[in-house]
């Protein structure tokens, strides 16, 4: 793979990823949004996280797994419980990773 190709990927990705983030902010922060739109936007964060968790727990790496016999589902449950009790992102993330390693050794 040529050096030029890789550099054009790097520069292209920088632009693409910046524009997809900046354009909505630049536009939406300059207009007053109607209440129904604000209402809709208030549901977006929980919806995005719900779909990301579903993808990560049931289809890690893009293929279906059985959540009962895989470490992903149980480690996700553990992470959720730790966050619920502690309200600490750091503690929950670390507990989840440790739990995942232990469960993987156990469940195979």
């Amino acid at each position: 793979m040529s050096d030029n190709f890789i550099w054009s990927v790097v520069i292209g990705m920088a632009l693409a990823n910046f524009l997809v983030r900046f354009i909505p902010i630049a536009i939406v922060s300059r207009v007053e949004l109607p209440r129904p739109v604000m209402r809709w936007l208030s549901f977006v964060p929980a919806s995005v996280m719900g779909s990301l968790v579903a993808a990560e727990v049931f289809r890690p790496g893009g293929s279906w797994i059985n959540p009962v016999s895989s470490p992903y589902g149980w480690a996700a449950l553990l992470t959720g419980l730790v966050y619920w009790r502690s309200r600490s992102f750091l503690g929950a993330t670390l507990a989840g990773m440790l739990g995942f390693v232990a469960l993987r050794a156990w469940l195979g």
Partner: protein
Amino acid sequence: MLRFRAMPNTLPIGNAERGARFVRGLKLGLPVFLGYMPVGAAFGILATGLGFSTLQACACSATALAGAGQFIALSVIRAGEGIFAVLAATTVVNLRYVLFGATISPYLRGLTLPRQALLAYFLTDETFAININDRRVGLSTGWSMFGVGVISWVGWVSGTLVGAAAASWIGDPSRWGVEFAMPAMFVALLIALAENRQHVIAACMATAIALALPAAALIGMHIPSAWFIVMASVGAATVATLLFPDRSVA
């Protein structure tokens, strides 16, 4: 929603106050830093394996800051595709940032365009969720968001550097449980963001749609996987808006 709101960002504040808000952001972003380090290292290892130099891998992480968008780019490159396919893949995977940007932009109204651009550059799943959560408890400001962005960026780029420079020495990153760092953060953020019954229902609907879309492939309907997250999020938020009419404006 009966929670007290922060003072607007536009009020004049002193340097000490700015510094305190920035440091608060750094602290809030610490779990993101720790989560990004190993995943960034995984990106560095994979990228150098594909022919990226250490400089190129780090430049990519430093400028794109795109997590899943960077991994999908590597897999498209590995498949032998050209630059446009790479850019299309990274853009589609990161289309959810359009939703994030639109959601967070009402809070960025008081900021100048260059400052908005800077915060847009730092926008990721995790920084978004932390800032939105912080905003809901009434404490987030432009400076704290900047702190969250900086510490996350440092984690992602330094992780990439370690992975790219020490790929052969680190070996298989999965033995450290790094593949669960991102899912663990998503789970914690989901619980933080699903703050009332209506949000929980929206999240459950999103989960169901996100699983129904790939399941549709089993009956012969093929939807590109890059669209699953965007379609599930848009669908669930739309149904939730229709189900729960506007009583208390968010």
